[in-house]
């Protein structure tokens, strides 16, 4: 057991997989010699050398396309897109190329790659460097989408993503890079498509992802302490595949559902989950499912504005308390 930052967990996760499999290669802007803009790839270039850890030009389409061509023909590339907002300039690969080649070719082509990217707000970077865009990817058949919230999950889910035979979009949260957590020694390999109940409870289910997970946990403690509400917190972790069973199971016990989403409200991941629960567990519910999201606005830069726009611990507490009528 060691305490590790989320940032160092990224490094350890990539290194673990590169050590295991010489076909794992890594490319991105400023990732090699400079160690990444978030310093989340420091030391990999020194450890694995210039053939496996490669700096690219500022060419997001070339990065994505090259990863795909390498994946199709036998490598297991990890590509970094510095900020997830930049998916918009290479979205063709995310929407049309990675996820469709296997299907269109009737199974002849494969695309086993991982795209890592810095997602989410909290750095006061404004509307083009702060977005949570996991829902952009979740809607596309053929992709897998994960977003870890802890250092341990970073390593385990990254390993699972690299070993997975499908294209996986791996969202790292920029505001979590400096956070710390206990990580066991030795190899860690997790499973895609599994949610985790982080805090068992009886009165309400709170689903959260990435940066919203620590906030949901803090809110649950406050709900318990100040309002006697015992909330269950589930870290969704994997949007595709989605661990619907864990979610439905939790709702069946608590009879109330809340989602805490950093993505803007329209078509956020919680909307899909709420619709699944409405379809399949309507009679388990004692009240309407409630989505706690960022509003449908671009993100502001100013710290006081950014702080209130994302779901906060207090907003979660207030929303759950009011809904439960206590």
């Amino acid at each position, binding site marked *: 057991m060691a305490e590790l930052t989320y940032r160092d967990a990224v490094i350890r996760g990539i290194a673990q997989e590169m050590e295991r499999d010489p076909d794992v290669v890594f490319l991105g802007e400023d990732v090699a010699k400079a160690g990444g803009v978030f310093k989340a790839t420091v030391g990999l270039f020194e450890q694995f050398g210039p053939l496996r850890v490669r700096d690219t030009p500022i060419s997001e389409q070339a990065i994505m*396309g090259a990863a795909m*061509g390498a994946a199709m023909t036998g490598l297991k590339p990890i590509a970094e897109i510095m900020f997830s907002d930049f998916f918009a300039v290479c979205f063709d690969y995310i929407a049309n190329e990675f996820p469709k080649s296997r299907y269109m*070719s009737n199974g002849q082509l494969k695309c*086993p790659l991982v795209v890592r990217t810095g997602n989410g707000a909290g750095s006061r970077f404004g509307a083009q460097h702060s977005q949570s865009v996991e829902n952009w990817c979740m809607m596309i058949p053929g992709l897998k989408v994960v977003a870890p919230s802890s250092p341990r999950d970073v390593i385990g889910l990254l390993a699972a993503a690299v070993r997975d035979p499908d294209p996986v979009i791996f969202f790292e949260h920029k505001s979590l890079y400096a956070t710390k957590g206990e990580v066991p020694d030795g190899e860690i390999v997790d499973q895609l498509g599994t949610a985790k109940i982080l805090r068992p409870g009886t009165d309400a289910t709170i689903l959260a992802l990435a940066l919203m997970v620590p906030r949901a946990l803090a809110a649950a403690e406050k709900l318990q302490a100040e309002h006697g509400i015992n909330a269950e917190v589930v870290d969704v972790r994997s949007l595709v*595949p989605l661990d619907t069973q864990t979610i439905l199971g939790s709702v069946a016990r608590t009879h109330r559902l809340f989602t805490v989403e950093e993505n803007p409200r329209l078509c956020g991941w919680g909307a899909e989950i709420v619709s699944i629960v409405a379809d399949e567990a309507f009679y388990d519910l004692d009240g309407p499912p409630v989505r706690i999201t960022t509003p449908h606005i671009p993100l502001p830069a100013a710290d006081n504005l950014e702080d209130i726009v994302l779901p906060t611990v207090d907003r979660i507490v207030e929303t759950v308390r009011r809904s439960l009528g206590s």
Partner: protein
Amino acid sequence: MATAKDRAQASAGSGLNDDIGEAKRLELYRTQVVIREAEQRAFDLFLQNLVKGTSHLSLGQEAVAAGFAGAMKPGDLSFCTYRGHAHTLARGVSVEKVLGELMQRDNGLMRGKGGSMHLTSAEHGVMGSYAIIGAHLPIACGAAWRAQYKGAKDVSVCFFGDGTTNIGAFHEALNFAAVWKLPVIFVCENNLYMEYTPIGDVTAVPHPAGDRAASYGLERVIVDGNDADVVYRTAQAAFDKARAGGGPSLIECLTYRHSGHSRADPAKYRPEGELERWKERDPIKIYKERLKQFGIAENVINDIDTDVKRVVDDATEACKAAPVPPVDILTTDVYADGGWAWRN
């Protein structure tokens, strides 16, 4: 090493046993005739409403496909556009499988799941046909990166049109390939038009690929894309360079499509006489003359023509008789486990 231009210029006037030789010439001829007949048949089947969806023919551009495929070794990889039937056939994929896919039958290359614009035959090295302009240039870079990383000797070849040189992915891929010195060959088939707009109307330089080569530190290579010998020699030089670790090439092949952009296009935008002038330089006509020049007997040529017609006729009948794809393949191969499950 001879440059592409040297080799291309060396073509005229060589004897029968020149660097290309009789066997290769007959192969280049046959490939062009297969493409011509299969594409013509695709057009006829479209008129009978048996080819569904869209289709983009390479009638008139056969020499580019034949010349490059003729210079490829097994294991070399082709990356095509929606106008990819020619390159797929040139790698040896059967006419039946190609027509079957165009007719969206169960005997098609991808059993109707891809369609005319996405012909793929991994076993023949046809690593997909891509319908988003420019997308496959970076993908070809990636396949070439794998070869470089693994120390493999295969080369990736990426075919695209003149219009494709104006999209960002072209620039990204060319620079990337040059900086990483990748074994990839970019082949621009300049057929003078994007869809309906002449390429000159929308491009800052006269030669959309050739005139930009210098930006990537590459040689300006512009060749007659209607002469399979020229294309073949040019291709060989680029393959030699790539296999020797010399990095990418960008080759502009001047050619012309005899039909419209896609099946729905009557190509009314072409100035009068342009098609006729280019038909005088029909690649198959040129090559037939070439064979005769080299003393190849008329009956040998005719036998190829007859045999190819029979192959295309047989394929047509097989496709007409083939069933449509079964509904159960609708949800296969979305994910690598063979299925489409996104939740438990």
